[in-house]
């Protein structure tokens, strides 16, 4: 494995020399007619993170963003010669360019932040996937229509089918597929409880904005603003006022339309 780590270090050092370029583009699916709940949440989280860092970027919508991404998941950014996808690698990438939101945190606080980020990716993301792809009403009324909207007729059907199979495979592997909706909601409730306990009555989790705030904003804001036939998920999250207030605060501060 030495040659691999050598390659990594070369990339890192090359990357560190260059400042943040002007023409960074963030690729994501069409927001109005195509994007699904889980994808939308992660795209919003990345946007919030980049805005918190004051890094300029342009949003570019492509119907096939998912297939352009190196990891197969949206969103991804194109920054000079580099293509980086998903929040965690993007945070790492920005940190290599000396742009970081958690530089002043102690090691324990950083450990805590990573744990809470895992909590969200493990519970909220899986719950979103569950609602979108496993819950029959939502799947039929929303997910199927939106996911196949960009493809011609037989292809849309096939693509939805294969994507659903892969999502279900993932949920099965994580033992989420055999849960009932109520158990999923109970997990979400517990996750939100933990988050709002940690947040308390502060403005941000660690005083100033961090990537954890960006991630929480992405998920909470998307869940409470997306209209779905199954309203239970949104209701569960909306009961936690501090999280909703945090999402609104970040929305006003960073996403205010001129």
């Amino acid at each position, binding site marked *: *494995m030495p040659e*691999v780590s050598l390659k990594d270090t070369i990339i890192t050092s090359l990357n560190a020399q260059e400042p943040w370029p002007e023409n960074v583009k963030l690729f994501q699916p069409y927001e109005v007619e195509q994007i699904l709940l889980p994808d939308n949440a992660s795209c919003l989280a990345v946007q919030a993170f980049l805005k918190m860092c004051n890094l300029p970027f342009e949003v570019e919508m492509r119907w096939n963003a998912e297939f352009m991404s190196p*990891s*197969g998941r949206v969103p991804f950014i194109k920054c000079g010669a580099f293509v980086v996808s998903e929040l965690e690698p993007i945070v790492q990438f920005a940190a290599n360019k000396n742009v970081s939101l958690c530089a002043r945190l102690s*090691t*324990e606080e*950083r*450990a*805590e932040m*990573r*744990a*809470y980020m*895992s*909590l969200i*990716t*493990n*519970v909220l993301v899986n719950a979103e996937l569950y609602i979108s792809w496993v819950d029959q009403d939502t799947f039929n009324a929303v997910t199927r229509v939106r996911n196949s909207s960009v493809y011609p007729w037989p292809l849309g059907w096939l693509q939805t089918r294969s994507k659903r199979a*892969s999502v279900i*495979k*993932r949920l*099965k*592997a*994580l033992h989420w597929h055999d849960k009932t909706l109520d158990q999923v909601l109970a997990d979400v409730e*517990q*996750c939100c*409880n*933990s*988050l709002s*306990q*940690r947040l*308390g009555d502060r403005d941000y989790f660690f005083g100033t904005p961090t990537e954890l705030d960006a991630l929480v904003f992405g998920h909470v804001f998307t869940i409470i603003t997306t209209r779905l036939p199954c309203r239970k998920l949104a209701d569960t999250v909306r009961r936690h006022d501090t999280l909703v207030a945090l999402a609104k605060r970040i929305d006003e501060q960073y996403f205010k339309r001129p």
Partner: protein
Amino acid sequence: MASIELDIWRGEWGLASIDLECLKVLTYMKFIGVPVKVREASNPFFTPKGTLPVMRDGRTVLTNFEEVVTYLKSLHYSTDVHLNQKQAAEASAFTQYLRDKLYPAYQYAWWVDEKNYGDITRPAYAKALQIPFNFYYPSKYQSSAKAMVDALYGEHTDLKEIEKTIYNEAEKCLKTLSDRLGESEYFFGNRPSSFDATVFAYLAPLVKAPFPNGTLSNHVKGIANLSRFVARISQKNFRNVTDDYNRANCQKQSRGSQSEREAAQFPHETRNKILAAVFAALAMTGYAVANGLFQRISGSSWQRTLLLNRLRIAKKHFNRINKLKEMKAAQGERT
């Protein structure tokens, strides 16, 4: 209160159980000191979900750690009362963190890595199981672990790449855990909590099992405060298990250094030789019979018997003729 029963996978290498989930439940029960009757199950076929551990208390049958914690809490057994709400939130976040980052690596090291699976995992589980089941369950667990790794890291096509990614994440996770633990005795205050049981269950098998391909366990062993944490908890709660194992190990080593080991092996050696000889003889005879090597001998002897019979009959006739001749001669003399 009816006594609580717990069925688990048997232990090995100085562990109370070889399985992560069993070890979690068992450690937690040791922490709170609830009276429990532990049984080493030899077959998970009749359990509710086809997995172990299974906890039974009267009519209540529980199969996973979270349920057990909740149930024991309802009986007023809990280790988490000294946590405030913020700490409880943190504990649940860290539990998910381990599940997210360390669990795939753990499953990879135990089941997906072919060398470890062949040398360690499969023999250990096969030893714990009864005869028809030990052909079925290890490969079943392996395929479910493979499915999980494939579902989570399916975007990498190469297994080497997957291994590198998983172990990298796990290493970062272990580093984070070690930062969080620092030099304190337990993760939250100076009393054990359910989170400590979880961490111990993840780390102890990695420290104690002798993996041939030990990338992950070397990461754990390389972090001083985490290996001290494991040693401390197993010393405190599983002293009899570790002591038994150490004693057995010492005996084996002292024997191994002398020629006593040969003496101990001697009867087996003779027995094996005799068995081998008998088997070889049987096999050769069988082969010979099957190929008709004995047919000529047996055929000729049959013919010989026929010949002898004919000779005997001829002799009888001859005797009778002689007798008749003598009688005729005697009659002729008389007349």
